[in-house]
């Protein structure tokens, strides 16, 4: 499972940071960093919650 960010859409709202602070982080300038791009399967529910809650649908999950 790979976390894919659509950087044209991301507005740094930070919902993903709230839901999964071990996977996502905002820097001082408000830019998003993905800390672990390919988290383990045990993280799927958390990543799916972050994907669903992004207000601009900038997060998707690639299974390839």
């Amino acid at each position, binding site marked *: 499972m790979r976390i894919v960010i659509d950087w044209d859409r991301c507005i740094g709202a930070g*919902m993903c940071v709230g839901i999964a602070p071990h996977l996502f982080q905002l820097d001082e300038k408000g830019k998003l960093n993905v800390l672990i791009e390919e988290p383990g399967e045990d993280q799927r529910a958390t990543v*799916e919650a972050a994907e669903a809650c992004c207000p601009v649908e900038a997060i998707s999950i690639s299974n390839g």
Partner: protein
Amino acid sequence: MSGTVIVGASLAGLRTAEALRKNGYEERVTLLGMEDHLPYDRPPLSKGILTGTVSESDTFFRTADHFTELGVEVKTGVRATALDTTDRAIHTSDGTLQYDNVVIATGAAARTLPGTDSLSGVHVIRTLEDATAIRSDLSNRPRVVVIGAGFIGAEVASSAREMDLDVTIVEALPNPLARAVGTEVGRLCADLHAEGGTTLLCGNGVAEVTGNSTVEGVTLTNGVTIPADVVIVGIGVTVNTGWLEDSGLDISNGVVCDEYMSAGPTGVFAVGDVAAWHNPLFGVTMRVEHWTNAVEQALIVAYNITNPTEQRPYAGIPYFWSDQYGRRIQFLGRSDADEVVIVDRTRESRKPVALYRKDDALGGALAIDDPMTLMPLRAHIMKEGGWEAALAAVQPDS
């Protein structure tokens, strides 16, 4: 099998349909919407749609093809008129549908100001049509009065100021947003209006909206009249539960559900603005009119429909955001608090963070332009030791 009928084709309804399919639900899924459109995103209506930076087509979540591929039948322009939980039937303006599961996602409608129906230039803002009508009026460079200093009213005022229009907000209560975020933080948010060039008048209600066929002004209870060419009414919403009057469901505050978002009878669920539910995290029944709440409840209900023997409760942390005057206000949790502590974390940078204490716990937190500080606080909400941990996390940089 009659499958699942989702009544309401906005965010909560859309996401329920998608999550059902994602969970492998193979029965029929029908999405009923009373508007003539496919599902669209409402937050841009008070912002980009008004200023013209977002087009109408940008607000649509999905194309018609998407629903075909997903195997979801969307019926737009169809209004549900009654629910019969004994016969498991939904009566609509387009005939009767049987269901195995029904998901009530009918949302809410903007509250209107009595006596203004026949006046042109007076608007509410809830639908795409509302927003495009306002945009059209704003292009005539009118004097704008916004009634209600809630977040919707504030965003509309901000958008009109972005277009360099003359804007006044009138608010009946002495302080804006007192119920939403508390008095002190409400004042902090209200400061944004002054900085943005909007006049904010608090403490007097609206006595009359004047004008013959077109609006001319707003007269307050203190006798002052503010001239207006356009009036936008942002005084809250009423839940769309009229069609459930004879259903036997508890509709005392929206559709009242248990912690699993079940409304009582077998196979009846509710999601989004219309749903009140028992939130085990806070130990109270709440109804939340936020974007993220709709999305999270949709996932829970889709799970509970697909896994009838393993029900999941919704222990959500409410979240909302509001973009105004180039700033972003974000709020997590509940504002019902025993104490509110405001910290200007980086002092000079005008990025205040407010913490809401409930007993010994962190009940909620608000920040302006500081998601980096706010969002990690989510982990502390209603957790043991959360208040102390949150206080430590927001101390100003030394």
